[in-house]
């Protein structure tokens, strides 16, 4: 009996050593990349890509390993800027004012979606935008909510100084607004917008669908990493558009995938679908590539970079809005050509559209 | 009307002990004190001397019986009974002079009065009075010091001045010299005698030092739990109550006299020796004020 036990032990040990050796040997060869993401309707497909092993499959195809890490939004971008992550999902605004303005050259390789109502200015007591003068407005300062408010005020002939902005953490903004009837206006994003809208007497006076294509959600990769390892871009694009294809089928298979995304986002499938309605997803690689390569995006980015500059987001001592250069797929550059820090790179989207990633 | 300034009648004191039982500390204490006496209370460890003092002070109420000062039942510590403890008699946040003035101020100024300004002349009067007492106890030059800057003997003198300035009817002293060294203790004994005579005070002085008790007292009360018929839970009784008539001024040399050692001997034997159990009827209660209610009780 004892002999058998000893034998089994020996076999187990041998297997253990062998597997440890194999794993470490395999790890030594393949390059591992860290991709960080945070919860947002347009980014949930990344969780599904990891969950369904689609991402692993594509990584394997290009001989690399990709690790997905979920974080809170701002810390995720900070981790990316501190080079603790190689890629990160973020909006065009943060891509410009966090990494690009800090000299971490960043390539936006996948145009995922634009906010088409996900960000909204909500009021109670039937207040319109023009009535906001002199009022307190809760929002996360210097976020896309802030941007949306400034655009809304501009369109209605008001200035930012006409209102008082109360910086409020996104964790508290919805319950605090719902509970305090004295608070009359708030700018926030989904799913908080939906939550607040369920209350009686709330009006959605302006949302991001009025400024389509200005609040963009992209997959950002450090240019430095991408130059050395274009296979990372290929694997990410390949996995993303496979998930997009599944989602756009609109059948039981799509529902199954979206059910998983909804779960990860902490909502029901119906709620998640409702959020997707206000998110203009680029399901097709061609659409995404066309938008990224078009001329419209330059005009939209111009609004964003001007907002960033006037709010000190490009660095408080930045002398002009042109200090950070933005490069587009056609080779044109907005701002300083010698300091290109944000690159809209449509190569991988084009490859996906042309079926070259298969 | 009351020839006795202090009267204790049938006082029992019991404390809750384990298993819901009561532990008797004092049993049937009857004590009457005339004004101007210096009564020293002595007895073996754990006999309840301090308990007796706290009953008179009013910080404790008797389980049974009555404690009266000038005919009035004692309810809580009050202005007519001064106290000097072994420690913690002075307020450490006040200078010596302020400590002595404290009682006078309390009497005159209400709490709001403190915030709405003092009556300067009244304050000056208190200061003068405090200084008079400090002079008497020999601490005038230390009047600006805080208690922690004083020696043990000086602190006790300050505490006595603090109590005396209020002119209490009875001055209670609970082992006031317990923390002092031999030399200082003897100085303090002389000092207490001087003050007692000068102020014509009535003093109850509790001590565990037999020699001190015999030397100071005009009357010695011996409290003991060692007497015939007492089981473990009986509580202490007054087993000896005798007058001691030493002359004043009283040199410390009398401590070496034959009579002194005889008194000490008899108290040690009758009161402090756990092996000598006196019958209750044989208690030596010779003092005039003693109520000789030596009825034999049944102890079971």
């Amino acid at each position, binding site marked *: 009996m004892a002999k058998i036990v000893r034998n089994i032990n020996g076999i187990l040990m041998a297997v253990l050593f062998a597997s440890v050796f194999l794993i470490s040997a395999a790890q030594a060869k393949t390059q591992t990349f860290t991709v960080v993401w945070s919860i947002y309707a347009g980014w949930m497909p990344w969780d599904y890509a990891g969950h369904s092993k689609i991402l692993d499959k594509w990584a394997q195809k290009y001989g690399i390993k990709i690790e997905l890490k979920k974080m809170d939004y701002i810390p995720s971008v900070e981790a990316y800027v501190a080079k603790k992550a190689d890629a990160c999902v973020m909006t065009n605004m943060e891509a410009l004012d966090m990494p690009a303005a800090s000299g971490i050259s960043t390539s936006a390789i996948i145009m995922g979606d634009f906010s088409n109502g996900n960000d909204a200015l909500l009021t109670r007591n039937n207040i319109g935008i023009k009535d906001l003068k002199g009022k307190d407005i809760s929002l996360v300062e*210097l976020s896309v909510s802030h941007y949306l408010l400034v655009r809304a005020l501009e369109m209605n002939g008001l200035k930012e100084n006409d209102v008082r902005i109360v910086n409020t953490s996104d964790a*508290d903004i919805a319950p*605090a607004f719902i509970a305090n009837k004295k608070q009359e206006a708030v700018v926030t994003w989904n799913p908080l917008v939906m939550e607040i809208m369920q209350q009686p007497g709330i009006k959605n006076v302006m949302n991001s669908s009025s400024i389509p294509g200005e609040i963009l959600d992209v997959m950002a990769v450090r240019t430095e990493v991408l130059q050395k390892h274009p296979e990372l871009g290929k694997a990410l694009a390949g996995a993303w558009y496979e998930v997009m294809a599944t989602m756009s089928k609109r059948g039981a298979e799509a529902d199954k995938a979206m059910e998983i995304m909804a779960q990860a986002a902490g909502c029901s499938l119906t709620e998640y679908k409702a959020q997707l309605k206000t998110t203009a997803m680029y399901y097709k690689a061609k659409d995404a590539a066309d938008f990224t390569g078009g001329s419209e995006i330059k005009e939209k980015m111009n609004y964003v970079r001007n907002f960033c500059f006037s709010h000190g987001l*490009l660095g408080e001592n930045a002398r002009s809005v042109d200090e950070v250069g933005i490069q587009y797929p056609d080779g044109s550059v907005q701002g300083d050509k010698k300091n290109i820090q944000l690159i809209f790179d449509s190569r991988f989207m084009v490859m996906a559209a042309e079926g070259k990633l298969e | 009307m009351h020839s006795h300034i202090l009267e204790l009648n049938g006082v029992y004191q019991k404390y809750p002990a384990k298993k819901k039982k009561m532990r008797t500390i004092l049993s049937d204490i009857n004590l009457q004190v005339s004004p101007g006496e210096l009564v020293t209370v002595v007895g073996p460890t754990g006999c309840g001397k301090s308990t007796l003092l706290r009953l008179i002070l009013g910080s404790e109420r008797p389980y049974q019986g009555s404690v009266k000062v000038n005919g009035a039942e004692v309810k809580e510590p009050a202005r007519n009974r001064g106290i000097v403890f072994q420690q913690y008699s002075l307020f*450490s*946040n006040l200078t010596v002079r302020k400590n002595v003035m404290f009682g006078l101020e309390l*009497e005159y100024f209400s709490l709001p009065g403190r915030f709405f300004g003092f009556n300067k002349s009244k304050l000056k009067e208190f200061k003068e009075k405090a200084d008079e007492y400090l002079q008497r106890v020999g601490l005038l030059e230390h009047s600006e010091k805080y208690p922690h800057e004083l020696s043990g003997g000086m602190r006790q003198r300050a505490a006595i001045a*603090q109590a005396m300035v209020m002119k209490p009817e009875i001055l209670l002293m609970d082992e006031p010299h317990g923390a002092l060294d031999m030399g200082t203790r003897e100085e303090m004994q002389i000092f207490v005698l001087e003050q007692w005579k000068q102020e014509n005070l009535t003093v109850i002085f509790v001590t565990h030092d037999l020699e001190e008790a015999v030397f100071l007292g005009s009357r010695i009360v011996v409290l003991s739990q060692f007497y015939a018929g007492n089981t473990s839970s009986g509580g202490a009784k007054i087993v000896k109550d005798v007058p001691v008539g030493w002359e004043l001024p009283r040199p410390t040399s009398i401590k070496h006299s034959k009579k002194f050692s005889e008194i000490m001997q008899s108290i040690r034997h009758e009161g402090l020796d756990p092996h000598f159990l006196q019958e209750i009827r044989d208690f030596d209660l010779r003092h005039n004020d003693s109520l000789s209610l030596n009825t034999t009780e049944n102890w079971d």
Partner: protein
Amino acid sequence: MISVFKINARPGRFACFVLPWVLFVVCFLLYTRASFVRHQENPRDKLVPTVTQLIDGVKRSAFEEDRKGDLRLWVDSWASTKRFFIALIIISLGILIGLNMGAFPYLELFFYRFFLFFDKVPALALLPILFITFGLGEVSKVALIVIGVMPTIVLDTFLRAKEFPRELNIKAMTLGASHFEILYRVILPNIFPKVLDTLRLNLKAVVLFLIAGESLAATAGLGYRIFVVRRYLAMDIIIPYVIWISLLAFSADFLLRYWIRHKYQWLNK
């Protein structure tokens, strides 16, 4: 060198002057080194700004108007200081509660267990409830500090009042003090410096809760600014702010300590 690890060592004048500053200098050197390395690699690095950039950040914060036309360091400091002192005044009421609890057995029964429990509640976890109840204004921020720190002060005062020698209370009664006079003329003056000391040790908690409250909802304040400029990684603002907050808290601590030592000389027994 030999005498470093001797408990009876007597450091010389030079050591007394130099040693307390060594770690400050080491930190400073390590920082400038790290900053230098990062800036060689990426001249636009924002995470570890150079000393020149930090000084520039201080200048911009303290002496130049921002886009709202504020000298923001002073605006923020004033906003935070105001909250700090209002909270401190309310917390001081805790001293009176603790004093009464320690002196009156009925009040002890009434309050003690409640405060003991309340003291264990992590105040930060209550923030959502505070924001919902008191809104996003000043009340909720002050309430956070008060809830976070007051129970400690109440309990500390209570324990000190309770352990105050009974003999002295009795002594005061024999000197003619009423029960209220014992509280306010005997116990309180005696324990007050020690309670102040506890308050001093809790300044850190006060600052912590202040910053936490401001970071979640505010229009001005030191904590507010740190969390807002974090959006664009302005470490050249954040680092001077952190140092400034520490300096303010350190000064408050120092002044209180100085006050206690000089005002209550009798305490140094």
